[in-house]
């Protein structure tokens, strides 16, 4: 297959962070240079991903497609492809990594290594979004784990080793099941057609017979641990709470989305029958996650843990959207992923700024922030209400599409999910109440935002408003891939039939 | 053959297990090495008997090879035993347990 771009843009997207990693390791004794090099690399990746937005897809749905020789003996090729869904995800990755670098500007402990790990993480995440060869996908999937393990384990605070190991083992256990399923699929396909290959398009044609539910379960467990779905979610609060700012941002903003993306790109298309049968279960898990996360979030006194539980809640809505069997809901779910990445990423950035100033994340030690730092407080309020789903801001656009689409096929699920907005308001207002209003506890004076922090948050706010008020730029690339996905996976719900 | 093969094998088996018993039961390193020697001799005897029974010279060649190997092994191990005695002052096998988990 011929790449439809003048240069191998997808490979370049992967190569840039790797080069940046090497550069950071070489510059590890001059961390100022390493910092700027990292920023330059992440900006380059972001600009490249923005350029991809201007390209339109080919007839088969792919915007770009690259295919190179890799391991002929196993039948694995280095295949990268980008369609509308991965375009949005790659754009989100590029953007959030720039933000991650900007909020980690003043790392005191091994800064060059930190930036190197950030870039390696970016390479892994981009690979997950772009790979369409199953072995290559698995490689990048595992590649995401290692930098995250070290980011949490070395630069975290509190019980960091516990949280890092817990995160790693949870995800690894799921990934191993996926590996088993993957190999099973590979062998089945090889036995049936005589052609042993890991390519996604070829493996879609396999007739799995009685093995299909097991293979599907193997893939799904790996992805659902990442999403995360109740009851496999307990790694998330610990990992989020102890991770450094950029680590939490990447976890919430990107790693959670890789799980959902994996479901859409691999699990649903490879096993259509099992997928269609499992939709009610997925939707129920989504609803349970929505309420469980919100209820637990309400009781937290550590604001980072509160936002972590809120992520579980939002991803519950996303899961409901992809399991609803409606194209509108699926588009809404993907849009909500992008919106959630921005708003929750911004919240984690704000919390790390808050921690640096006040030294605490406990609600009973904070309060009265508006008087001291009005700009920081305004941003906290803004992203707080964006997170709870105020119309005109990012999360609402995705959520209302999910609710509207789900209502067409399963009204009861949608009505239940809508009541979740009250819960979202409850915990978010509790957090805002505890941080912004009330009296300031005695102690040092808190500075307002610096220029760098202000620009970071301003750009995030701009993105939030854009998705909230004019999401067409993000919804248009989704129309074709979602339609292909729904038809190819037989996901159109047979219930309903309303216009 | 003058002696039936079964007798030879029984005798060499007995010699082997006597050597094994010596290895397992003794705690002094030199005694363990002596036990190993006896085991090797037992094996050599079985080889010689088999060679006589099947009229094949390979068994006897193996016994000569075995003697050469044994000499080399003994010289090295006795050298190490002398070194260990000088370092630790004891030749008890269980005293050397620094590789525990």
């Amino acid at each position, binding site marked *: 297959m011929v790449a439809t771009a003048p240069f191998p843009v997808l490979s370049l997207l992967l190569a840039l962070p790797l080069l940046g990693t090497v550069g950071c390791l070489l510059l590890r004794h001059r961390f100022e240079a390493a910092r700027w090099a990292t920023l330059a690399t992440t900006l380059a990746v972001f600009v490249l991903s923005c350029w991809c937005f201007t390209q339109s897809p080919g007839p088969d749905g792919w915007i770009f497609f690259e295919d190179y020789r890799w391991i002929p003996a196993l039948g694995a090729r280095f295949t990268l492809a980008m369609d509308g869904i991965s375009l949005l995800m790659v754009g989100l990755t590029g953007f959030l990594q720039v933000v991650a670098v900007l909020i980690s500007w003043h790392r005191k402990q091994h800064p060059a290594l930190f930036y190197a790990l950030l870039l390696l993480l970016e390479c892994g995440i981009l690979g997950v979004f772009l790979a369409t060869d199953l072995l290559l996908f698995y490689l990048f999937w595992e590649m995401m784990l290692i930098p995250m393990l070290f980011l949490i384990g070395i630069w975290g605070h509190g019980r960091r080793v516990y949280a890092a190991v817990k995160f790693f083992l949870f995800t690894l256990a799921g990934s191993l099941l996926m590996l088993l399923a993957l190999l099973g699929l590979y062998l089945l396909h090889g036995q049936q057609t005589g052609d042993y290959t890991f390519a996604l398009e070829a493996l879609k044609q396999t007739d799995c017979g009685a093995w299909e539910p097991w293979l599907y379960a193997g893939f799904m467990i790996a992805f659902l641990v990442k999403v995360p779905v109740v009851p496999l979610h307990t790694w998330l609060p610990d990992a989020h709470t102890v991770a450094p700012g950029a680590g939490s941002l990447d976890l919430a903003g990107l790693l959670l989305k890789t799980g959902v993306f994996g479901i859409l790109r691999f699990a649903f298309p490879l096993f259509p029958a099992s997928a269609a049968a499992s939709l009610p279960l997925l939707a129920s898990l989504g609803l349970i996650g929505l309420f469980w996360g919100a209820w637990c979030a309400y009781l937290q006194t550590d604001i980072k843990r509160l936002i972590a539980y809120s992520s579980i809640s939002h991803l519950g809505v996303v899961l409901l959207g992809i399991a609803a069997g409606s194209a509108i809901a699926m588009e809404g779910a993907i849009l909500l992923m992008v919106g959630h990445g921005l708003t929750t990423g911004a919240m984690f950035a704000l919390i790390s700024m808050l921690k640096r100033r006040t030294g605490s994340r406990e609600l009973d030690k904070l309060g009265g922030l508006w008087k001291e730092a009005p700009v920081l407080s305004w941003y906290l309020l803004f992203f707080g209400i964006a997170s709870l789903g105020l119309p005109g801001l990012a999360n609402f656009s995705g959520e209302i599409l999910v609710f509207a689409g789900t209502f067409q096929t399963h009204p009861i699920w949608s009505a239940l999910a809508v009541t979740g907005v009250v819960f979202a308001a409850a915990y978010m207002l509790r957090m805002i109440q505890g941080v912004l209003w009330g009296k300031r506890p005695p102690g040092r004076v808190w500075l307002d935002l610096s220029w760098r922090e202000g620009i970071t948050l301003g750009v995030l706010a701009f993105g939030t408003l854009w998705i909230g008020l004019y999401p067409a730029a993000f*919804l248009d690339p989704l129309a074709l891939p979602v339609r292909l996905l729904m038809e190819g996976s037989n996901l159109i719900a047979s219930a309903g039939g309303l216009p | 053959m003058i002696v039936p093969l079964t007798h030879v094998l029984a005798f060499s088996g007995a010699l082997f297990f006597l050597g094994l018993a010596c290895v397992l039961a003794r705690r002094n390193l030199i005694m363990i090495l002596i036990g190993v020697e006896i085991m090797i001799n037992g094996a050599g005897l079985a080889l010689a008997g088999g060679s006589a029974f099947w009229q094949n010279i390979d068994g006897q060649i193996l016994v000569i090879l075995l003697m050469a190997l044994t000499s080399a092994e003994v010289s090295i191990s006795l050298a190490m035993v002398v070194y260990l005695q000088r370092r630790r002052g004891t030749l008890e096998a269980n005293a050397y347990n620094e590789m525990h988990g």
Partner: protein
Amino acid sequence: MNPNLLFLILLLPLCGALINGLFGLRLPRALRGAVAVGAVAASFASVCLLWPLAAGEGTRTILGTWLASGNLRADFGLLFDPLSAAMALMVTGVSTLIHLYAVGYMHKEADTARFFALLNLFVFAMLCIVLADNLLLLFLGWEGVGFCSYGLIGFWYAKVENAAAGRKAFLVTRVGDVFFAIALLWLFAALGQLGIPEINALAPQLSPTAVTAIALLLLAGACGKSAQLPLMTWLPDAMAGPTPVSALIHAATMVTAGVYLLCRLFPLVSLSPTAMTAIALVGAVTALYAASCALAQREIKRVLAYSTMSQIGYMFIGVGAGTVSGAMFHLTTHAFFKALLFMGAGCVIHLCHEENDIYRMGGVARRSPLVFALFLAGALCLAGLPFSGGFFSKDGILLAAYAQGDGWFRLIWLLGLASALLTSLYSFRLLLLVFAGEPREKVHKHHLPGLMRWTLPPLALLGLFGGLFNLPPAYGGGERLHHWLGSLAGSLPVVDHAREFQLAALAGGLFLLGAVIAWWRYRRFPGEQPSALKNFLLHGWQADAVVEWSLLKPFRAIGRFFWEGLDRTLIEGVLHTLAGGAMREGETLRRWTNGRLSTYLSGFAWGLLALLLWFLLVLAKSAGPPHT
């Protein structure tokens, strides 16, 4: 006249909010207020200038696409028809006066940038509700006013109670918003449309059960925003905000949004007699409940808050009885006199040195005759002085309820009459306790800013003579509002003029009766006489306690169950057991590698034995008997 100019009505307050929000701290104080007032006044001027566009079917214009996915399509579109134009005129006009008042009220306040930004943003959101041409944009405004209300109620955030009051308002109204959202989604799923004119036109296609259900959901949504039973607990506490906020949000605009929603979707709602009866019943019961609570309140603004709740109940009765013009008429006159009352209350509080408790006031008439006269005008309109604006509007609604005949509506009419009596009673109680007699607390001379005084007379005039807007034919009037609304006006009650005069006389009689009872009881301050009944009414029939026990405590308990019970104990317990088990196994196995030569050698021996046994028993057996 370019229809796109209609967007100016919305965008001018938004620009005011952005200027004050982004640059307000850098602007001089006077400029902040000027920007805010100027923005709203310009918006009002736009409504006046663009008024001809609203006649007949109105004008519909679209700025651009907002959300488009599949067959869901919601645009930034405006519908400027008679109903929305009338409402917009009222909203922008009253807002301008209140913004002027606020400039005077907040002259000692430091953080006016945030205040005026939120106030302008609120007007923008309210105008979104009024002018939106599709339900999703209306929902944007709906939530927007909720957020601005949250920010403004908790404006003086240093006191935690104020912030808590704001949060309560947001959460309770959000419960109502959930029902509204479900109705919105249902309409989209059933009709494929989100545009308001389209929904109104296609509504007959729905099945009767669907219509009733959707209408009831819309009623629940309206109850949240309009503080009707059972979602009314937030309104009395919302008085913690500055007085201009109470005047604007909790008298004239946000709380009337619920009524406006029902009027906007009246063709849909009116298809279901059950829903109409339910709307009227909710309004009537709330009116009585709130009027009874107002009788026992001690804070001047809380009396007015319960009074607002009660009057909005009347508007709901109007909608339920089928007369949109009647409900809108009362909405307008109520906005005038209630804003007047709130602003007057602000003046009174200022005069009494920030004292809120009417038991500690008294004799304010002597201190400021102007404030007394204006407050009196507003209170008389509220109580229903014959031939004032309030009289005609309230009477119109009661007439419509009466005209609906027997059954539920007769009960509703009786409840309305009882509430009218109580209204008169608490209005005069308020007047007597605040203004009459001697001052009960020592006071110092306080200067009232000019802006606070001179923004009130226009409202007093509008309140007293507002009857001219919709004078019924029985009194020789032309019913201008009803005719202006045209097809959107709902039905007119058909009652003969003799009956109408009898009912009006009845209303006038209740007004006098309430005045007489209040005079008899309160002309001399009776002192504090606490009683169980007074306590019960003071706390709103213990509604807060009911909510706390039935909803909040279970909520927290369930949350604790999920977090501590399930997450920490069950799931973490399972994980830690597994992890602990794995570690213990590792410890056990670790004991085998003790570094001792004898252990390893015996391991060799046992392994050798096992292999030999395997060779002899297994392999030899499978190979068959030896062949020799």
